[in-house]
């Protein structure tokens, strides 16, 4: 992830305040965007609103009128995209008359499919297949952490749920992510629901019952905190029992 400094006072619109619904009609993709949540922000009424859809080298932009008069374009077809998978959206609010100044932005908004509940949109750690050479799994940090499982191994969904994999991989993954969040990024917050790092801090605190984080300057204490979090997580997941059972069967063969 490229880190950029926001010195401009640009408002960050929370993803929960924007909802993009996928529509499919005989294979043709389009979308509806619910931007009612923008009313909760102190935005200039005459500022322009744009919605952008993107994935890799494919990008489309849709003008949505002004803050005080949201006016979706009639044509909201996602004609440049072949499938809805991994399409993300951005909402941009730009100043009227001030040379393209960006006032507010929401980014990495996923599509919600019809009938999908809000809470189902993004699991904390989505699992995806990918060719990984000789590696079995890897954590990918594009946008937010994903657990990649080597697609050449076969049924990756079953692998992700298998007791031996769960017992070995998941504590390792938790440790890696927490080291990145707490040691590398020195992240403290657990309240910003739009920041995956905050979600992981909250997860670690709630699921392990550990108290407040040690100060970010105290690296050693943070490593100890992470060790405790992984130990508590492993205990809750009964990883030793799972692996032990798997190993007994393996040894008996």
């Amino acid at each position, binding site marked *: 992830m*490229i880190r*950029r*400094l*926001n*010195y*401009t006072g*640009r408002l960050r619109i929370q993803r929960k305040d924007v909802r993009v619904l996928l529509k499919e009609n005989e294979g043709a993709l389009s979308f509806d965007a619910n931007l009612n949540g923008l009313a909760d922000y102190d935005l200039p009424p005459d500022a322009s609103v*744009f919605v*952008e859809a*993107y*994935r*890799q*080298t*494919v*990008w489309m*932009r849709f003008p949505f009128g002004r803050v005080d008069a949201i006016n979706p374009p009639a044509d909201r077809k996602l004609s440049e995209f*072949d*499938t809805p998978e*991994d399409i993300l959206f951005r909402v*941009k609010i*730009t100043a009227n008359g001030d*040379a*393209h*100044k*960006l006032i507010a932005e929401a980014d990495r908004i996923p599509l919600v499919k019809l009938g999908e509940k809000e809470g189902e949109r993004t699991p904390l750690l989505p699992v*995806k297949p*990918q*060719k990984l050479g000789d590696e079995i799994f890897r954590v990918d940090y*594009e946008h937010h952490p994903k657990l990649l499982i080597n697609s050449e191994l076969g049924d990756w969904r079953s692998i992700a749920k298998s007791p031996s994999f769960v017992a070995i991989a998941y504590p390792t993954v938790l440790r890696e992510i927490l080291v990145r969040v707490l040691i590398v990024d020195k992240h403290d917050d657990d309240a910003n629901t739009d920041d995956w790092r905050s979600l992981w801090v909250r997860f670690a605190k709630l699921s392990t019952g550990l108290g407040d984080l040690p100060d970010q300057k105290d690296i050693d204490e943070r490593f100890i905190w992470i060790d405790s979090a992984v130990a508590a997580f492993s205990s809750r997941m009964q990883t030793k029992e799972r692996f032990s059972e798997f190993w007994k069967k393996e040894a008996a063969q």
Partner: protein
Amino acid sequence: MKLHRLNKTGIELFSYFLDALENDPTQTLPKSILEDSTTSELITPIVEVEQRIFDNRFNAAEYFDGVFSKAGLSVVDRDIGLWSWLTLFYLDETCPPNKGKERFPGHRARYIPEVDNFRLYYRHLLAGPYRIYKAHRQNPQRAFATLCQPIDKPGDIVESFASRQELITNPAIMEVATQLYIDPKTKLPKRGAQTKNAGAARRLVDILNQFDVTWDLYAMLSKEILEVLPEEFGKFKAPAI
């Protein structure tokens, strides 16, 4: 030859061939898998592709765009079998032999596209330039900074821009990159464009990443972006002598 796509077996054989080249760089091309029905499938309507030498990534992308139009293929970006077939068909371009008839392939993603991997998808030697060409179809010349290179040597400018979705898809930014770094006479990168020095392509990427926080770069014209660039880019603004 008629345009095909490799099936799963064909892709595996192609992959084995690339592996085999690491041990024996003089391995001969497994051409039979290009048309064998057990390793490839014919694309219909039938379209012929011809062996040719591409001057650069732009020529290749332009040619493929024409081929796909004839075949009625509108969405091919993520077609792993098709791009693997084309890479094998044009192996003398994608992995040219040296004087000793040895081939030394690079990362696998250059030959068999990794369409779901955001760090690698743009590195495919044929799909990469085609995606850029297609993203700028209304005026692909504006993205020439990332399309002027030989097929098998994309280089630093391509890596700097293509790895960042918000830059490679932005028409004005690609115009700026082409104006700054491509010599209009030679159609090649200007001296110093691919270095780590002030004003070089990598610096432009850094600066644009910071601008992206302040301005709606997709709404800006190339002229407007050029006007707000720091002085270090001045030497590249002047036309090459």
